[in-house]
């Protein structure tokens, strides 16, 4: 491999590290490289075990290895859900309790509890004790979360299915409010 190719591989790797969850077309657009060149470097990086990819709907999304401890697929599913995105945004802006989140985004506490549990399991959110309350903060760098949310949007079908799921979640018994 020549020096120029090496430099390009490093550029692609750095880009993915700074923009986890980016897809091929976005990398092409931002790095102004040809599709073939980027595909070559992505295959190389995957073979070297430096990046991983997850196919979802029409796109393949790239992640730096280690950042999400092989939870990439589940993280894409989370980002597919409007409510989970809103919860992440709320946590990004303040350190809320579950009740705060329920009040801000106007959903049932059962629903908040269910989403928070999944976000904590995936390491996207961390629980912090504050007296008798539990507050939530981001578990990973906020710029990574923002980048993933920018790169990945739920389509109309997923937004509707998410609302249907919310409807059933709100019918669940309310538990663990705080």
């Amino acid at each position, binding site marked *: 491999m020549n020096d120029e190719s090496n430099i390009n591989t490093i550029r692609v790797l750095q880009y993915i590290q700074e923009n986890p969850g980016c897809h091929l077309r976005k990398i092409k657009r931002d790095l102004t490289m040809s599709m073939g060149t980027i595909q070559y470097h992505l295959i190389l990086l995957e073979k070297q075990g430096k990046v991983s990819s997850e196919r979802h709907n029409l796109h393949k999304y790239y992640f730096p290895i280690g950042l999400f401890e092989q939870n990439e697929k589940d993280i894409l*599913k989370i980002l*597919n*859900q409007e409510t989970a995105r809103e919860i992440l945004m709320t946590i990004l802006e303040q350190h809320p309790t579950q009740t705060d989140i329920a009040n801000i985004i106007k959903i049932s506490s059962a629903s908040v509890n*269910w989403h928070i549990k999944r976000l904590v399991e995936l390491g996207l959110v961390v629980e912090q004790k504050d007296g008798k309350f539990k507050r939530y903060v981001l578990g990973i760098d906020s710029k990574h979360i923002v980048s993933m949310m920018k790169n990945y949007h739920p389509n109309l*079908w*997923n937004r*509707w*299915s*998410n609302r*249907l*799921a919310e409807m*059933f*979640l709100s*019918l*669940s*018994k309310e538990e663990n409010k705080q």
Partner: protein
Amino acid sequence: MTLSNIFLETEPFGIESGIELAIVAFAVVLFALSITAYRNTRIKKILFAAAAFALFAVHIFVDSIEDYLTFLDEEIIGIILKLMLFAILVLFFVAIVKKK
């Protein structure tokens, strides 16, 4: 009577058939939405709702071809249709009361 005979003997497409078709199509869309919601969230209670939407589509379909099901007694078809409606309500009830 085969299914092809049923379709051959069907009367020209009227408003009623159009509405029935729209209801079935809408129930199928709701069924597909529920399945997507289940795949994204893995909340089992959504599967009960999905089953209810699917059964609703089947109910409307059976109801619309009732006249052509000559091998079945009218009374039996009536009972089957009522049981389907009951099952739909039971499925929704389970979806509401079931714990995640």
